[in-house]
């Protein structure tokens, strides 16, 4: 598969990693516990979680279904309010969802009565208030172009495939130029081929912005997490999920989808993650 933009403008992984570590925190999760009150009493989804994410870092939250990955992510987006603890994003305590944190929802969440173009335009119009109408349209055109949907811009979401909807959702999140991008199992519904090219697209967009955007993504795909992330956060099984381990991915960027799988570091991290996620590797007779 063809790889990301011009590699010359990118720094190699070691210094890149060093650079990231010296940066300020983009997201600071401090002792966050989230409990929901249900009919059967209180359910604690995540318990006393602390996590720091540097500016420009890509972090993958990984864990089994129902382990509270999405809940944790939603505390960053502001969709979920922690029962205790707090989340600081871009220096402010998160209280509500805000346009500084772009969200790509698990199920795309496009408005079905609007064209692809309008779906992105309404978000841009709402967030980039200071721009003129022409500038807003230029932004929308630019991002539709970037995800290769220009020929489909007048279609309704119902007329698009899952991969195309995903690209619209990503274009919409990028178009409002947030400093933090939150992706909730963004590629979960896609076939392997589309998924692969979407990974590249995502990194492309990230590179074009000089790797300044912080990306937090929820996934349960180990390969995806390793290919994209600087840091993989492995979560324990819920309820009351905690962080099991944070695994740093020190693979050089740009990463090549095909070559990376032969890298010894890749294999080591892959094994480590696998054993963190699965206690048993075979069925005991």
């Amino acid at each position, binding site marked *: 598969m063809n790889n990301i933009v011009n590699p010359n403008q990118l720094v190699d992984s070691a210094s890149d990693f060093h650079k990231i570590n010296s940066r300020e925190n983009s997201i600071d999760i401090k002792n966050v516990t989230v409990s929901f009150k249900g009919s059967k009493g209180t359910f604690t989804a995540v318990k006393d979680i602390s996590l720091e994410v540097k500016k420009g870092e890509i972090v993958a939250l990984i864990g089994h279904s129902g382990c509270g990955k999405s809940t944790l992510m939603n505390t960053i987006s502001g969709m979920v309010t922690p029962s205790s603890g707090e989340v600081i994003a871009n220096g402010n305590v998160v209280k*509500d969802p805000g346009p500084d944190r772009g969200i790509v929802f698990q199920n795309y969440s496009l408005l079905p*009565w*609007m064209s692809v173009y309008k779906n992105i335009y309404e978000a841009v119009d709402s967030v980039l208030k200071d721009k003129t109408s022409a500038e807003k349209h230029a932004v929308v055109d630019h991002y539709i172009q970037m995800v290769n949907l220009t020929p489909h811009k007048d279609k309704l979401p119902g007329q698009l495939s899952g991969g195309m909807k995903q690209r619209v959702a990503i274009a919409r999140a990028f178009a409002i130029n947030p400093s933090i991008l939150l992706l909730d199992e963004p590629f979960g519904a896609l076939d392997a081929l589309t998924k692969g090219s979407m990974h590249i697209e995502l990194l492309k967009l990230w590179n074009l912005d000089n790797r300044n955007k912080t990306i937090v993504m929820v996934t349960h795909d180990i390969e995806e997490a390793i290919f994209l992330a600087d840091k993989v956060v492995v979560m324990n099984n819920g309820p009351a999920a905690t962080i099991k381990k944070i695994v740093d991915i020190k693979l050089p960027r740009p990463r090549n989808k095909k070559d990376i799988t032969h890298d010894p570091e890749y294999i080591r991290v892959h094994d480590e993650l696998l054993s963190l996620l699965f206690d048993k590797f075979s069925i005991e007779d």
Partner: protein
Amino acid sequence: MKSISIKEIATNVAYFLASMAILLGLWHLISVITKAEIPNPASTWIVFKELVADPFYDYGPNDKGIGIQLLSSLGRVSTGFALGSLIAIPMGLLMGSTQIGMKLLNPIVQILRPVSPLAWFPLGLLAFKASDGATIFIIAITSLWPTVINTAFGVSSIPDDHKNVGKAFGFSKWKYLTKIMLPFALPHIITGLRLSIGIAWVVIVAGEMLSGGVGIGFFVWDSWNGLSLERILVAILIIGTVGLLFDKAFNALQNAFSWEKK
């Protein structure tokens, strides 16, 4: 939208004709049983042709053509229905979008909804000092409820997915209303309007019977006084057909504005 084949159209027309044949058959049977006290379809047809031949004659306040009567009723229904909807839609939006709105307004809706149009009529007369105003008033107040309820239901059932879009991208209240709430609720609103116009059209006859003057309801009452049952039957058929056309029109509107099927 799906295309309809000629064969399908032909089948539908055949069914409609068969249905009408059953209606005429029953009608004829009843006429025979009642020894022609209820006029049969044939004699009604003759009167229908007479009435339709000159629908817009005007020989003074108590003798006007069926066309004038019908148009006058349609005018009242549209006015009453439009006024009712202008109240109903915002009220439904308010009820559907806020818990407080729902809790405050729902009891009022539930108490006023079952009240017969006839019971409202004296209040209308009192308020408007004119029978025309009173008729429009009772149409408005009895036809608005289905629109209120359906609008409220539509708005309250907006999926979290759609609401989250508004939250995540910081939509203003106005943008949320016009880009998320109204488009989502529109098919429900139109369903409400469809039920409402049906009620409005039912109420007009009762209203005009009380109010007198000009109108299809008055025409029925006047024909009864003149002991022309054929004219009453003609009026009933016209009322039914117009009701059917209203329903078809709103059905078409429903299809045109439904984003789900596209």
